[in-house]
């Protein structure tokens, strides 16, 4: 039996019918063709599938799409506003915060949440914040640098805005 849902993804409203057991990550990838959100471990450990639901970073492999009726979702595809990369995306680019890139979308979504809550984090706070995102290539060093770089960019932006 399918259930009707109404979900806004990256600013676009989607109405559809889903089987209740369909996971959010499958809804995003298979129903909406948003394949930027990756499926990693499927056991809520690796964080590759992280998206924002109503502003909160969550693992989309551990949510059913039906739970999101009426919610707003942001995926990696929706992070760059008006075609301009988000500071976290710029940071990952400039500091090469990746090797194979598989964990990157999830890393970026979680990093965006970390910086929203703590605009001036220490390296240790970044590492603690990224505990739910596994990277098997980089050893995390460049990822931490990328997030620090993003923090600086975001701070200088707010300074300009003031």
């Amino acid at each position, binding site marked *: 039996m399918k259930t009707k849902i109404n979900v806004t993804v990256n600013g676009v409203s989607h109405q559809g019918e889903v089987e209740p*057991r369909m996971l959010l990550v499958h809804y995003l990838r298979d129903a909406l063709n948003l394949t930027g959100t990756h499926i990693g471990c499927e*056991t*809520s*450990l690796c964080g590759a599938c992280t998206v924002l639901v109503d502003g909160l970073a*969550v693992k989309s*492999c551990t949510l*059913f799409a*039906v*739970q999101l*009726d009426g919610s707003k979702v942001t995926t990696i595809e929706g992070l760059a506003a008006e075609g301009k990369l988000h500071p976290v995306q710029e940071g990952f680019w400039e500091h090469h915060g990746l090797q194979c890139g598989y964990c990157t979308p999830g890393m970026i979504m979680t990093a965006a949440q970390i910086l929203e809550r703590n605009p001036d984090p220490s390296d240790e706070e970044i590492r603690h914040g990224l505990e739910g995102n596994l990277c098997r290539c980089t050893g995390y060093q460049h990822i931490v640098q990328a997030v620090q770089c993003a923090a600086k960019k975001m701070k200088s932006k707010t300074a300009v805005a003031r």
Partner: protein
Amino acid sequence: MIPTQFEYVAAKSLDEALSLLGKHKDDAKLLAGGHSLIPAMKLRLAQPQVLIDISRIKDLSYIREEKGQVRIGSMTTHYQIESSDLLRRICPLLPETATHLGDVQVRNKGTIGGSLAHSDPAADWPAAVLALDAEIVVAGPKGERAIKADKFFVDLLTTALEQGEILREVRFNTPQGTVGQSYVKVRHPASGFAVVGVAVNLSVNGGKCQSAGVGITGVAPKAYRASGVEKALQGNALDAKTLSVAAAHASDGVDANTDLFASGEYRRHLAEVYTRRALGTAVSRAK
């Protein structure tokens, strides 16, 4: 990793959830944050026919203090507790425990009520609610009842919740006077769960222990109150010797778990060492 088919209902109120639970009985499971249940469903360890989503019931999500009691709604997320200014001020043990729990994403979604009702033997919240001598308030078809935390955890993944009941609230007396609290944990490097976790809630008067609450998780099939430790502290000066003597009772009368990661003997050793550390930290914070 696809669960079996089920019907999904989002309850709008506690009454609606209770009546749905009464109707579907054992065929139904309550869905809170889903971070214990959904992984179990994906492995088909749980195969409910009906999922009753209670996470959107607004009246179950709150943190407030009234009449000398702290009350936390069961659908309050770990992150809401971690970031609560009120709790940081009047009961820092809870925000501290929350930071040890899972990761950012899990804390955004998981709830205190869901975790307590699941009663994983290595979960963090049970230790904290035991140390605070909290009451677990449950709503059922015959009204409400309050269960003391040390009566709530019955056995491995088993609580005092009966069929048709829903965990509604966690409440405890606001810690008064000179209070020292702490939560320390040996974190399993892969799962993040507690190999051993010790929560301490001390009330101190003139350097002496007025009352002590010590909750220990990860060691046994269920979290427990270390009453031997509490008794050894009561009324005594909180010096290094008292803390050592008290900590030696950390796993008195407990059947410690053995698994691939740690033997029962090693867990008992960790329980003593981490109890001593948790007590030391709590004493240093008492002011």
